[in-house]
């Protein structure tokens, strides 16, 4: 077989595809993680017995173990234990969503706790239900508080997606691997791949900063 060792214009499409897969999985797992993580935080807000300590323990376990091991457990372990088929993409979605959820849970909990008890108590005295308090008093303020740490988390989680290349998902890093093996030009390949991740991370950080400014607009100093 002939080896195409030099770069071709088709490689741009490959890189774009890889970036697309990384971004799609990042977006999907962020949304699922947000949903699960905030649900966990709400369970804690209602002080549901049994469930709350269980969630805290599970979140700590996910936060304090390597994502790569979590990925292996889902991709290799689950099929062996439960006799079910797990594709690389499914394993990636399950693992990354769970991992993101654990970190979002922690941010959401501290965001809810950042709101003074007196506010919640006075809202309750006004006759608002616990849900109304959460919806109209806690949520808007907690969101403004959480955007900063959330942006930092998302920049980090984008980088974590690179690990799914190890179980065979053809994301940006996997494309890097393929190009690296074919062209044998590691410096160029990994600089381009790293550059793409860097630019994406910067865009996420920029978006987060803009959103934070908007959410905090009502408390911003408007001048005298």
């Amino acid at each position, binding site marked *: 077989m002939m080896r195409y060792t030099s770069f071709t214009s088709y490689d741009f499409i490959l890189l774009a595809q890889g970036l697309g897969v990384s971004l799609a999985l990042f977006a999907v797992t962020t949304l699922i993680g947000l949903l699960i993580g905030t649900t966990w935080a709400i369970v804690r807000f209602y002080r549901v017995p049994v469930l709350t300590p269980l969630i805290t323990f599970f979140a700590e376990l996910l936060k304090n*173990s390597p994502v790569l091991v979590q990925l292996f457990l889902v991709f290799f372990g689950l099929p062996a234990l439960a006799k079910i088929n797990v594709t690389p993409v499914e394993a990636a979605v399950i693992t990354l969503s769970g991992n993101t959820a654990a970190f979002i849970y922690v941010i959401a909990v501290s965001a809810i706790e950042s709101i003074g008890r007196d506010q919640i108590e006075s809202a309750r005295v006004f006759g608002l239900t616990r849900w109304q308090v959460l919806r109209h008093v806690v949520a808007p303020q907690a969101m403004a508080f959480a955007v900063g740490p959330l942006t930092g988390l998302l920049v980090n989680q984008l980088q974590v997606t690179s690990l799914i290349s190890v179980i065979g998902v053809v994301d940006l*890093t996997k494309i890097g691997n393929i190009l690296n093996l074919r062209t044998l030009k590691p410096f160029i390949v990994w600089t381009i791949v790293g550059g793409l991740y860097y630019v994406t991370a910067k865009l996420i950080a920029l978006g987060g900063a803009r959103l934070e400014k908007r959410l905090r607009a009502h408390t911003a100093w408007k001048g005298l």
Partner: protein
Amino acid sequence: MKFDLTILAPHVPFLLKGALLTAEACALALVGSLIIGLLVAALRTSSSPILSRAAFIYVDLFRNIPFIVQLFFFFYGLPEIGIYIDAFTTGVIALSIAGGAFSSDVIRSGILAIDTGILEAAEVSGLSKPVIFRKIVMPIALRTSVRPLGSVFINLVLTSSILSTITLNELTGSAKIVASDTFRPFEVYAVLLIVYASLTYLISLAIGSLHRRLNRDRMPDVA
């Protein structure tokens, strides 16, 4: 298939060997990232705009690029320019460089938190800049940032699992071998998850008590 941990018993010594390699890599990378972190923090807080800019670019780059990409850059790239080192050394270097970026941020905020009065007093006492940095700035900054440096170290331990992708059989790499030998991946990785989590928990406990010990004379809100 039911969950059976006893099949792992004969593989414990092999896994311990892997754990030892993880410990060695992390210990060396800890030293490396502290040295780099101190140096870069010194550059970032220096009065020269060029040096502080260069240090900022280093931190910004290595914090925003996935570790696995950095690792492959060194692992496949270094032989290209004639540097042949083994996977272990490459891993320690990559971990130190990435860890250095994170620790420098922590140390930098430790430096910026130092009361300027202390520095002015040192300057009027006629101490030279390097002496002020080594004897006054560094000890104070390191002491107050033990706890945040600890979380950087914990992250380093978790990140070290990625070294298994460059043929290094540290803890995760050894577990991969055991998983394929025993056909019991669930048991192996479930145990591995617990081991890493307990390990990092113990480290965080140790760091907490070290931080309190070193800062026992300071205000309660710092210690």
